[in-house]
């Protein structure tokens, strides 16, 4: 009664080989130590891939952004406007974004079957439907693990936030948990204290290194190397602390992005991406518009639109966009039905996200909702497909598995796959 079949999905085949491999295979796996799996490492090209994820907390309305439905019972008061992509229209609340639309694409057919904030936030950022008893790593942790080059001085997974929520790394471990730039400030403990002169630090670090060299004469492992080099990484990070200082950007750029929090955070994101940080997430709140949906969207998107479009434009102008994946996501969308308080409620049945940059077809529109946006009628996808697509877009084979201390974890939901027609 042995198992005579398999999922049919590739990762089972892959891991079966790895699994049944002889000790030689085991040795090869061991050689990689605590670092990146060889299979994953081999995928890394010479050009640094990066991911920028903009998370609009509360659930942005798809009707007031990427999938307007003018002149219908659900459409609301705003008009659609033309974009730089002929035939593609978005809501008039995003005039600047409309001008950079040829760098971006829209997916209008998400059905994530969920209207809960906590769950939506977890599922959209982990690409998995929440399973009791199992936590999955955040996209940032996965990106950091797969995209961070060896000896990279900066953290691989950065979250720019005003509320301090962290991107969990689950089984990938603390190395890949988000480093939070709370209110856009540099990471905690990254500043050398005033009573610790640099010369003192240098002397003690040198003495530490000497002690380590002596101990290496006894025994040296991947773990001792990792521990020793974590101090060097910390020093490198401290040396490059100005990377986190948005004040170092020009006054003109400060002006272009806007002095408000989100503008400054977008500018900081540009600074980090320019320094090859593999994953940056910027949070923007608060889109939970049960009341006065339209007024709130004027206000929130008014803040979002210009810095976002400026960032897209700058990345394109500086030649970074071809290696930088951009995503604008939310927990879910909002109900087509307008409630009695001129609000829209939680809605995961038919909504949209925006993707662009590295590996993504520019100017595409994937999927379709019906006339008044109450159902997906073409190319239904969910968080699982998005997660695969994003990883594939930056060159990570999302069908592979992580090997964590002998345990195998599929990188993305094995039951799903990428939206291949969106991939460039």
């Amino acid at each position, binding site marked *: 009664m042995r198992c005579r079949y398999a999922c049919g999905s590739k990762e*089972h085949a892959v891991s079966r080989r790895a699994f*049944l491999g002889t000790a030689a295979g085991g040795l090869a796996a061991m050689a990689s130590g605590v670092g990146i799996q060889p299979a994953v490492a081999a995928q890394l090209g010479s050009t640094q891939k990066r991911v920028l994820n903009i998370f609009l907390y509360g659930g942005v309305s798809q009707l007031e952004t990427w999938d307007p439905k003018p002149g219908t019972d659900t459409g609301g008061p705003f008009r659609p406007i033309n974009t730089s992509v002929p035939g593609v229209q978005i809501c008039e609340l995003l005039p600047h974004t409309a001008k950079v639309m040829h760098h971006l694409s829209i997916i209008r057919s998400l059905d994530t079957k969920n209207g809960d904030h906590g769950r939506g936030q977890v599922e959209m950022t982990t690409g998995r439907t929440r399973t009791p008893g199992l936590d999955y790593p955040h996209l940032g942790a996965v990106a950091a693990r797969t995209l961070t080059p060896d000896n990279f001085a900066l953290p691989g997974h950065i979250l720019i936030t005003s509320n301090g929520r962290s991107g969990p790394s689950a089984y990938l471990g603390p190395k890949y948990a988000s480093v939070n730039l709370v209110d856009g400030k540099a990471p905690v403990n990254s500043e050398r204290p005033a009573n610790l002169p640099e010369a003192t630090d240098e002397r003690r670090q040198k003495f530490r290194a000497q002690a380590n060299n002596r101990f290496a004469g006894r025994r040296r492992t991947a773990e001792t190397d990792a521990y020793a080099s974590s101090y060097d990484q910390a020093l490198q990070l401290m040396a490059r602390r100005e990377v986190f200082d948005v004040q170092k950007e020009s006054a003109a750029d400060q002006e272009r992005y806007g002095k408000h929090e989100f503008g400054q955070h977008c500018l900081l994101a540009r600074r980090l991406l320019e320094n090859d940080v593999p994953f940056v997430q910027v949070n923007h709140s608060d889109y939970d518009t049960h009341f006065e949906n339209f007024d709130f969207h004027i206000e929130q998107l008014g803040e979002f639109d210009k810095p976002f479009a400026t960032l897209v434009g700058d990345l394109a102008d500086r030649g970074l966009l071809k290696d930088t994946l951009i995503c604008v996501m939310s927990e879910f969308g909002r109900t087509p039905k307008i409630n009695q308080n001129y609000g829209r409620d939680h809605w995961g049945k038919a909504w949209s996200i925006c993707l662009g940059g590295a590996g993504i077809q520019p100017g595409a529109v994937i999927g379709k909702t019906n006339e008044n946006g109450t159902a997906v009628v073409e190319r239904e996808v969910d968080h699982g497909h998005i997660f695969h697509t994003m990883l594939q877009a930056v060159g990570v084979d999302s069908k592979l598995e992580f090997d964590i201390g002998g345990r195998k974890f599929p990188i993305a939901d094995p039951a799903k796959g990428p939206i291949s027609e969106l991939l460039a």
Partner: protein
Amino acid sequence: MHFVAAPIRPVAFCLGALLALTVLPARAEDLPLHERLDRLMESAAVGPIAPVCNDADFVRRVWLDLAGMVPPASEAKSFLEDSSADKRRQLVDQLLASPHFLRHYTLVLDVGLMERRPDKAVKTPEFQQYLYDFLAAGKPLDELYRELITADGVQTGPRAAARFLLDRDCEPNALTRDIGRIFFGRDLQCAQCHDHPIIDDYYQAEYYGLSAFVLRTSVFNTKDKQMQVAEKADGEASFQSVFTKTGSDRQLPRVPLGTTVLEPPMEKGSEYVVAPAKEVRPVPKYSRRAQLAAVLADSDQFRRNVANRIWALVMGRGLVHPVDGHHANNPATCPEALTLLTQELVARKFDLKSLVRELVLTRTYQRTCDPPKPEQFDFATLESLEKSLTAERETLAAAATKANFEREELGMKWLAATEERTKRQAELKPLEVAVAKAEEAHGKVAKALDGVKTALAKQQEQTAAVTEAAAKAKAAVEKVPGDKVLAEAAAKIAERQTALEAATKAASDKVTAATKPVEAALAELNTAREALAKARAALPADEVWLALEREERAALRNRLAADEAVAALDKRLALVKSLQEFKQQQAANPDLAAKSWDRLVEEWTIRGQVAPLKGLSAEQLALSLMQATGALDPQRPAALAAVQKKPPEELTKAAEAEKPRVLERLTEHKLLEQLRGPINVFVGLYADAAGDEFQATANQALFFGNNNQVASWLNPSGGNLVERLTKTEDPAALSEELYLALFARRPVDDEKAAIAQFLAERTQDKLAAVQEIVWALLASNEFRFNH
């Protein structure tokens, strides 16, 4: 047991082993457990076996592993200076008897059971207090697992024990997965939706068999928002494979690789001690969770898992690794050692301390972490080793084929019996339906009969009343003759009487008519019931089916063991090949050979031939830093004072002779409470969710270098390490004190020289210089790892 050509070992060790052999009893069973384990491990070794470590490594290692921190400098020094031959054993016994062991294993068990989940229903301090008391009472380990399963947070067991269930929200899939992993060492997650595609022996039925024990369990919230564990008397595990669409409507409870737990029939309406209702916590008469607890200690897989996890706690890695990855294709590095340890676990009644003691006394535990050198190994032995292993493989493979075949056969037999049983049970279905139908038909006519009977009674009552009135009216007419009105009334009443009598007769006829179908229906019902009873009696007895299942399960375990033996041997053969390849590379490509050798060293580490470098856990690191810097010293008297200030009953009521020990135990626990703050800071930064994967992050290094936490321990005060060192004039003495405090060893000459030179350049700011040196060594690999 099989013997292989013994590889050449370093000379020093060989002599020691020979000496040991001469004084030991001849029969293997009479040898101490640690010696028996070592012999099994050594006979399974391929390549060099490292000698036991020096005293310095040992004292630091055993303190970290049994007391959870580095030894105080004074203890390290006196151990190094102790010349008694038995000093290692003495130290082990002393540590095992100390409350240090209770504190350390409290933390270790907490991480193993709760895997650093955030607090929910039961807070970590309460759970740790529970574990501490459990360990202090010296209760058997299987009891702990039973308590975790049965505790309901209100009636049964200590409330804190319910953390295992409650803090997983009693979610059946979360519980199934974690009980599978933590109790049985089998991560069945994949088998939730289909038989595991990679691991041959992880079946979906196994997942749902385990799930059947817990799926009736849920969280009950009291009015004042306390979480408690509730259980219902119904709810069945059913599943269908997403691939094959096969499955079961009713998977009965069964532990992994164990037999089905059949349930006593429960009469409808009396399934509960406390029946479910609004705002009431249901308690069933028959608890499936209690059943799981009852069969736990008899489960081979449970025992094997517990034995392997204890091995992993002591050695840093399970014989089976990962500890939740038990299956035939993931063999134990030495299956015989795991089997022996499992047997001893049962023989010693799950006594954790006794097993830990034997394990730290093994040579396997005490080996040095210094890697062996190629010249210490005689490569000429490989050829004969390969030959004997190849021959042995043939025998084992034949045995595995046989075991597979036997199991396949029994499996088919059991499957056929199960199908037959299901079929026969299905055959009862029409009979059950017939009984239900007959019951319904009988009910219907009986109800009709009841109706006409009621009507008749009513008629009879009316008739009786009117008959009585007619007689009275007749008597009145006779008494008042000539009263026309009266006579008319009497005649009318008499007329009514006649009519009523006729109606009564009609009703009576109806009753007679309705009685017949009832009798017929009853007869039919009885026939149907008899048929069902007969068919039920004709079913094969449960015991027969269960006996067959037991046989099949035993054959399955046998098959897994046989497959494991082959897989384990293949790993040894592969290692022989790697060694041969190394030998070839050594001549052709020395650089490549050096790398190969490093990989071989890692493989020997896994196989217990060389000691591992174990990264300190977050808790060990925090406590060791405090111990080494002297930050811990003032904490202990403070804890003692706190206990004495408010002595708990446990202390006041203790017998006079017991009081010092009780006080010591309470003080150690108070100390843990006091240190929770700094410990949690380190847990937040250094701990992994699963608790066993070593990770070094820049965040940790930033914290270690720039945060005030570590810096504060380096400020001179109250005779702490930095203060003592600063006051020490002689650099050599200073070095010695420093190295004993941090590494439990004396510095070598060149280390002393480095410190002397460092200090010589800094006569003006000696304090700062001392702080720099102490920080540097605390941040070094030698401190971060247990070696």
